[in-house]
């Protein structure tokens, strides 16, 4: 059997560091571009 899907658990320091980064989200033009491409492709790509 393949390894199960696991939850992500971080140590206190890593979790706190991540939360601090998320307090001030930085704009990510690359992510914006990926989202737009995903949006444009979504209906064409998916079939029932």
């Amino acid at each position, binding site marked *: *059997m*393949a*390894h199960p*899907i*696991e*939850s*992500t*658990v*971080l*140590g*206190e320091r*890593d*979790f*706190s560091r*991540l*939360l601090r*980064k*998320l307090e001030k*989200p*930085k*704009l*990510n*033009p*690359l*992510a*914006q571009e*990926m*989202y737009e*491409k*995903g*949006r444009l*492709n*979504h209906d064409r*790509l*998916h*079939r*029932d």
Partner: protein
Amino acid sequence: MKLKGFYVTELRESDDFSDFSCGDGDLDDFIRNDAPRYQSDQYAFTYVARTYEHVPIAFYSVVMDGVQKKRIPEKDELEIPSIPCYKIARLAVDEDYRGMDVGETLLFDCIYQAKELSKQVGCRLVVVDSKPESVEFYLKYGFEYTAKPEKQKYPTLYLDLLSFE
């Protein structure tokens, strides 16, 4: 192998992955033996990419998850117990269809779906527990480490859904 195009549907009971090979035995085993049960039990949702001749060439499995802090009861003063996220639990492309932007297209689809979901339910990150050999793929698309990579056998990488509109 030439690919004119592909489409995506959810995993079907009739799907046959006996000829599918992504080069990772765990992932091949997952799509053949575990994904159907995860689907029917609603523990993970799997989408399958197929050629126009209906041959399965890739898949991805997604779950709702949370990036949690390791519990230290006497120090649990944090208000946020976990960060809700959309997890790409599995993403695999058949070896014969590598280098054709299949993985990239499916990743962008995940990002789109996660963003749309975040407009209706608390969801802040897209996360993936990456195989070491796939880390470069996700870093290339702007994912970041949640922790120092040497701490995790399968580094968890994330993309902040508030970093774009």
